[in-house]
């Protein structure tokens, strides 16, 4: 299999290498909601507990460090599963607990739609509807 759902930009990879040297192996969890929502949060492995509600999108292979696993909540993944994401880096300081903020940098997601060939190769099923039933009519 050559298709992948995730990638990392050279600038983000470079910072991940130096952060891993300082903090040990790292992981990402994609956030939702307000403020710094819709951004990837980077933590030392063991700081954030993943569970049944999460999907493992894959691992970023970065030369000179341990693989960096990338997770997202399953409910959010339903909306993202046709999207290829690249973790990139910009100047800034997210207000979550992400490990890179004190460096004056912020990881950011760049997105593109997966091609039909990639969708087939990755075996992605079409989306179901999240909609709840009206409570009161």
């Amino acid at each position, binding site marked *: 299999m050559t298709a992948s759902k995730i990638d990392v930009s050279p600038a983000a990879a470079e910072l991940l290498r130096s952060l891993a040297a300082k903090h040990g192996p790292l992981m990402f969890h994609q956030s*939702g*909601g*307000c403020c710094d929502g819709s951004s990837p949060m980077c933590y030392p492995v063991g700081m954030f507990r993943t569970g049944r509600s999460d999907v493992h999108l894959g691992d970023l292979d970065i030369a000179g460090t341990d693989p960096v696993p990338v997770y997202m909540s399953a409910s959010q993944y339903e909306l993202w599963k046709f999207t290829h994401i690249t973790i990139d880096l910009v100047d800034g300081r997210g207000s979550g607990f992400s490990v890179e903020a004190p460096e004056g940098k912020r990881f950011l997601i760049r997105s593109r739609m997966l091609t039909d060939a990639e969708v087939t190769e990755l075996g992605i099923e079409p989306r179901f509807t999240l*909609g709840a039933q009206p409570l009161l009519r």
Partner: protein
Amino acid sequence: MTIAADAPTEAAPSSAPQVYSAPGTEGSVVSYKPRYDHFIGGRYVPPAEGQYFDDISPVTGKPFTEMARGTAKDVDAAVEAGWKAFPAWARTSPAERALMLTRIADRMEANLEAIAVAETWENGKPVRECLAADIPLAIDHFRYFAGALRAQEGGVSEIDHDTVAYHFHEPLGVVGQIIPWNFPILMAVWKLAPALAAGNCIVLKPAEQTPASIHLVLDLIKDLIPAGVLNIVNGFGFEAGAPLASHPRIRKIAFTGETTTGRLIMQYASENLIPVTLELGGKSPNIFFEDVAREHDAFYEKAQEGFSFFALNQGEVCTCPSRALVAKSIYDGFVADGVERIKRIKQGNPLDVSTMIGAQASNDQLEKILSYMDIGKQGGAKLLVGGERAELPGDLAGGYYVQPTIFEGTNDMRIFQEEIFGPVLALTSFDGFDEAISIANDTLYGLGAGVWSRDGSQLYRAGRAIEAGRVWCNTYHQYPAHAAFGGYKQSGIGRENHKMMLDHYQQTKNLLVSYAEGPMGFF
């Protein structure tokens, strides 16, 4: 403005300038200090590690002060100071605490203009919002909880003729509060006022994008607050926020932000078995039923304003009505009028009182919004207006400005499902009541919603059918202290505002008393 506080508060002086001078420059009504340390135990304390970080104004993209960079040692000291102050603070009478809150409100009101200009400089929002909404609401919040506390009663339950259950309110102890950057002062006050009223001591961490304005307020009010009752530790989430949220000696943690950090905070709270309140945002639907356009009258204008409210505060509102659902039968005309209204929004210097949309709060926020505009275009949404970074001249060229933007599309697109936290509207149509509710509820979140109709029955049924904690009916973006605010689904846990907030910061003490003369008869 409809978002103004519902309580009477003095407006800006009539001599107010059209454009305020930047803080610290000649003619300005306010100046920031060159540096802010931590506020611990009633005094300013340098950071244990000796490090500081720049605070950048999004208006210009340039630093204007520097902040202590807190670490676990500073958090430890602040929690310790809180516990030292707690026994005496917990014994104060409700009247004493209410009086302190009232005096804080008075002091802020007397300095409203200075606080408003300072808030704009740090956050980037238009100063008219700070003058008419943020700061008056914060002032009113202190007054509301002063009143709510005085009127709060415990309970007496007669179990039987000889047995009585008394219920008392007691404070929790030292609590942690982590504040967002979109309404730096107002969101701090939403957490501070009920916690102080209830008799708790506080360790507060402001957002690293906007840490200074709360210190500017603190400078005005710190003589009113006993030492150690309110402690503020600045710094980054990873270095100061996580040590606070995971601290074994806090009795509660309150957070406003996003879902991953919300989960991490619950994880820490589970380690310490303490309660949390979380407000984690949403993707709020704003529904316009067919009868809205029956006449082109004042109500139609009101609904059009409601349509435009996604641009309020540059879209950096947890309840931003970022999904508009317009009835198919009125869609073309209503949307055309709405787009024209958006084109008339005045964007520019946030310190100009006529500016309607200012700067995004930070560079990373700007970059994220632009990345979502790219996602919208790639995902097949149709751009109706905006869609680019706004380039402003002169000193503002380095600031973080975005054009108000409308994308037309369908609810399964990512721009309809993810909070962008910018002035970006995802617009779609619906056919009938059931489809409107189905689209509105087809979201992971449930914080806010808007419903617009001339039919009171339809308004009621729609409001009850939407799974969200706050449904504005024929209005939007009003935040009175006496209305509960909080989320369904992934938008969070617990509420803010309303007197019920006192419960969120209180233990219930039950004394179960027997007045019987003799034994129960078991032994």
